């Protein structure tokens, strides 16, 4: 008997063929197997049971049903936002002790840099008393809703590899992204929208490129679909100019009739799949522009987010994230560019530059959390906020002579926060040393974060696998432990 892997085999078959013939009522064993495997949720209609994006229940009880991942591309300065270090302030300006530099390479710093305490003011907020700086005024009110992890660490200190490690579990291209793993495991709850949506703000795609939302070697039906606030919300979703909806319907009806004839002649199940996909495309042509149209929101809501219809802003994308998860989209991923605070220009200054960057980003995040809470969605939606690595406790080498204060890339410790579905609220986790050079308590590696996210969604990260080139691959590679301490 050949070696085989049931999940992969079932999916491979589905990729090219529909074993369940819509309307014909014929089952094949492949479809039954997948249905059993997927334990199709009651929501999914029987006819779509064999659809690779049909909603499925995870193998374990899940606290989160969907994810909104807010990625600040570039590496936010953790020491100026969440990780206040009075000792570092005391030693500010002193040469960095040799023990922190020996045998190490930094992206843009050579020689002996100078320690730099944060110029920001830190205070404790909320009942939980979580320390935050004045850079994030709108996060202060979230203190009792979030789990703040100050003990994140990663293996990579350049953007592209660090982002790929974070989102695909591997620092080089070619592996499936976190969002694809999640849609592969869970499908999506709305068959009229993509299951995994990517929204980009500030005009630049992340360093890791499209690999950050790619599907690697798993079926491409699980890759992230980039939706945009200008032009077609989904590429090529609009009918050509001059084609009315009625005429489009006429053409699709003709296609269906002719394709059904083709099917009756050749009996190839893929023809029926194609008919179904064209019908889905027709429905998406209505549902996608609808969900992407934030003009449908009240002025009050727009103001709360700071959203303005027509912009490709982070604020708009936060509002869209809520609209998308509300409609059953499984994984919404936001990428915002401009968090690489080297100090090479005023926008990369940890004083005014950071204040300005936060002014357009912390408010929409707070609005999103409050909005989800009000709608009862926060309890089963997982929110993640963070970057791909942290920043050094010393001034960046190249810019040390200038007036702008910046920090270099730093992988050993940084801060992220999680909120909502299944994580503790008002919880402070992990500790770094007094200068902010390393984690001294409760280290959380990016693989641990990945394992924890999958756990919250109901998966054992060691068992959500895909067979490729003879090996069972997983998001966490051969690493990762669930951070049980932060689970609610």
């Amino acid at each position, binding site marked *: *008997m*050949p*070696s*085989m892997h*049931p999940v992969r085999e*079932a999916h491979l*078959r589905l*990729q*090219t063929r529909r074993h369940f013939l819509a309307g014909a009522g014929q089952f*094949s064993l*492949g479809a039954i197997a997948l249905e*059993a*495997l997927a*334990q199709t949720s009651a929501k999914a209609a029987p006819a779509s049971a064999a659809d690779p994006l049909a909603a499925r229940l995870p193998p374990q009880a899940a606290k989160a049903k969907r994810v909104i991942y807010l990625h600040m*591309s570039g590496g936010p300065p953790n020491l100026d936002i969440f990780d206040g270090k009075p000792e570092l302030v005391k030693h500010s300006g002193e040469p960095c002790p040799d023990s922190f530099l020996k045998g190490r390479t*930094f992206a843009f710093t050579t020689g002996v840099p100078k320690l730099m305490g944060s110029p920001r003011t830190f205070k404790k907020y909320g009942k939980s008393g979580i320390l935050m700086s004045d850079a994030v005024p709108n996060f202060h009110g979230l203190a009792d809703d979030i789990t703040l992890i100050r003990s994140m660490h990663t293996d990579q200190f*350049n*953007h592209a590899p660090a982002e790929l490690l974070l989102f695909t579990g591997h620092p*080089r*291209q*070619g592996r499936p992204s976190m969002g694809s793993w999640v849609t592969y495991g869970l499908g999506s709850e709305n068959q009229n929208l*993509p299951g995994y949506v990517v929204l980009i703000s500030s005009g630049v*795609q992340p*360093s890791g*490129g*499209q690999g950050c939302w790619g599907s690697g070697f798993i079926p491409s*039906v699980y890759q992230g679909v980039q939706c*945009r606030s200008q*032009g077609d919300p989904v*590429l*090529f*979703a609009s*009918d*050509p100019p*001059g*084609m*009315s909806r*009625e*005429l489009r319907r*006429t*053409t699709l009806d*003709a*296609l269906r*009739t*002719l394709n059904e*004839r*083709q*099917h009756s002649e*050749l*009996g*190839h*199940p893929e023809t029926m799949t*194609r008919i179904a*996909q*064209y019908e*889905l*495309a027709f429905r998406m042509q209505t549902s996608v522009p609808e969900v992407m149209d934030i003009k449908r929101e009240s002025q009050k809501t727009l103001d709360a987010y700071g959203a303005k219809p027509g912009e490709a802003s982070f604020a708009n994308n936060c509002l869209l994230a809520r609209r998308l998860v509300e409609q059953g989209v499984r994984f919404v991923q936001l990428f915002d560019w401009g968090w690489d605070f080297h100090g090479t220009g005023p926008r990369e200054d940890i004083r005014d530059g950071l204040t300005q960057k936060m002014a357009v980003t912390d408010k929409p995040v707070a609005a999103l959390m409050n909005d989800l809470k009000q709608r009862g969605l926060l309890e089963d939606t997982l929110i993640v906020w963070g970057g791909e690595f942290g920043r050094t406790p010393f001034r960046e080498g190249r810019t040390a002579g200038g007036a702008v204060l910046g920090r270099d890339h730093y992988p050993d410790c940084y801060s992220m926060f999680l909120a909502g579905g299944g994580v503790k609220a008002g919880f402070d986790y992990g500790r770094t040393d007094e200068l902010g050079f390393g984690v001294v308590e409760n280290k959380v590696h990016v693989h641990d974060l990945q394992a924890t996210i999958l756990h919250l969604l109901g998966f054992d990260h060691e068992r959500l696998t895909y067979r490729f*080139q*003879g*090996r069972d691959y997983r998001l966490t590679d051969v690493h990762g432990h669930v951070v049980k301490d932060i689970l609610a």
Partner: protein
Amino acid sequence: MKQSLIIPILAWYAVQVWPAADATSADISFSRDIRPILSENCFACHGPDEKSRESGLRLDLESSAKHDHEGTIAVVPGKPEASAIIRRIESTDPDEVMPPPRLHKTITPPQIALLKQWIRQGAVWGNHWSYEPVRRPAVPKSSEPGAIDAFLAERLAREKLAFASAADQATLIRRVALDVTGLPPTLEELTSLAKASHEQIVDHYLAKPAFGEHWARPWLDLARYADSAGYPSDPGREIWSYRDWVIRALNTNMPFDQFTIEQLAGDLLPSPTDDQLIATAFHRNTMTNNEGGTNDEEFRTAAVIDRVNTTFAVWMGTTIACAQCHTHKYDPITNKEYFEVYAFLNQSADADKRDESPLHELLTPDLKRNREAWKKELAALDAAFAKPKPWWLRGFDAWLATNPTLADAKLKAAVALAPDKRSKDQLKQLEQHYIKHVSPTSKLTRERRAAVEKLLADSKPVTVPVMTDLDPAKHRKTFVQLRGNWQALGDEVQAGVPAAFPPLPKEAPRNRLALARWLVSRDNPLTARVAVNRMWESLFGVGIVRSSEEFGSQGDMPTHPELLDWLAAEFMESGWDVKHLLTLMLNSRAYRQTSAASPELVEHDPDNRLLARGPRFRPAGELLRDQALAVAGLLSPKMYGAPVRPQRPSLGLNTAFGGANDWQTSPGEDRHRRSIYTEVRRNSPYPSFSTFDAPNREVCTIRRGRSNTPLQAFVTLNDPVFVEAAQALARRIAKEGGVEPAASLPYAIRLCLARDPGAKELSVLTDVYDQALKHYRSDNKAAAQLIAAQPNSATPDIEPAVLAAWTTVANVLLNLDEFLMRR
């Protein structure tokens, strides 16, 4: 997940498709039936990797499996009840049972029965099938004249199945045209080939230059060919000469062994030609990282690792990447052996440099001729200036008398002197300046010189990154990299090939050329099998080994192992003749069958592995675009050259630290070139190709997915490229077929589907035409929008509403399942 429920279902199902033995069968093959079970469930802890090996037991080696380990023997031939392997698998004690529950692996009852039966029959051992030498098996006795069909028919008979009847001539013409050239047949071909034999059709298409353009595409997936360097900034890279080399090599039917040697080591051949150097760009398609703050050595190392992995994936169908960090857990490739292969590829001079050095400069024949002429002319002009014509110096003294302002310090000093104080040299310098910059009588000659200089400067040679080995004195040492970390080095190693495969010839130098020759030696068990399997996959939809990327222990078993070996032997013994092998496959009865299938057959063999019907599948996105442009009459026949930029939507995004992702559409016919010439940018791949599963060419891709999604419907319905094709097709139908549907619909269907229409089809499409015509006659503005023509394509003599109605019909034709599938 409910695995316990699923495995039996799928296992039962699989037995129907694969010729696996069951427990009652007398004919158990170790490599086919037993080794896969052991590999899947046991090798991770009892396999080649000594670091993860438990209890010193190896189940991948006969000696260890049958050895007495302190009173315990895993496999006792003839005695299942005495074999520890059976006892442990059947144990109900969670501390005893194998595989351990924490590994989430299950050996099913039928598999256990099989293991027992095998032990009872003597536990005969063998190697993994694909590591055994290729021997040409005898062709089964059969009424089928062709060897391929004889092997297939034997298996079909065992399953009580038979070949289907042949598809009709028109279907076969389109099938062969699409498979061989990636383009639909022209109307002329449909006529001229209507009475041709199948063999003539195959020969006709194999001889077309479009063959190379079509078959280059999958090879460029393997070669991870792109016109950009990758990583965040993704700058452009000039390497298209390599793409053209692949097309030419395929069209001249270069033998696959030569094709291999030139790409891996063309630079090491004696006095390599331009082409042999260009071929080595195969391994210069690795990415280079220009992100600030990155270490060149780290990314040079990453490129070499990619070359090792790609070489083994492409030629040996072997995932060697695991062994980069640890000894392979399933296949006998050690961590040390990985770096022995790495050592072959570690001497290339390239080092992740921004300028992609070393580069080979290349002059096209035209360019070469022109440059030589210009250089000659320049030399002649310079000689003329060295001996100025007397009349050029007219006005020289007058000019000197004006005391001109000169930038050059020497000249300035000379002008300042009284005329009689100037030395001969100084006078000469001033004369030269006068004739080269001032003299009205030398103006024409001067301008010509400047023009020629500019022509030369602008006619830069085309460059291509190539492999060049460092001087022996500068050779790098190669060390085992611990846990895949390029900075943590272990023992030094020398270039060599893994011990599980045949050795290198003793006298061979340890360089890339030797590695390349080793890959295509008659003794290499994998290269030919892997290559013919990929050809089979291209024509039949699925490989004889489904996992065309993995022939090792964890790969799928071949459905027809003898056929695979026969083809591999034929390939090598024919002199690695690619077109010969393709011809054999294309002329087989299996290939010529109709693809119509009964529900019972679909259920029995959903993936058509047994070939009781013709293959039918959805081709790549590149082919779908080319086909649409071809039937619309837009496709440019121009071959080769710098990449082009067809229409694509502007997304308004920049790459990280790089330029804009968006591009300006190429002018003229370049917007309608075949997809193979479309610029490949790794960070912003051409959207419609990606939607149809094209990889972004960052790493080697052996097998593309074949998904079927609503986003694909958006591409063929609404992508401006396909809309433009519908508009052009409409103009073509109206002009060449006539505006009345009764006359022109049959023409349109023949153009798109290569066959005559059925009555029902005509009535459905006529309805669409009538409704659309009514709509557009009542809405002229909409009609004008839908037919919005590209420059030079207006058809003023046809009513806009009629064209709009035909555009609507064309949009339907370009989206028919039959059009999007190769049937």
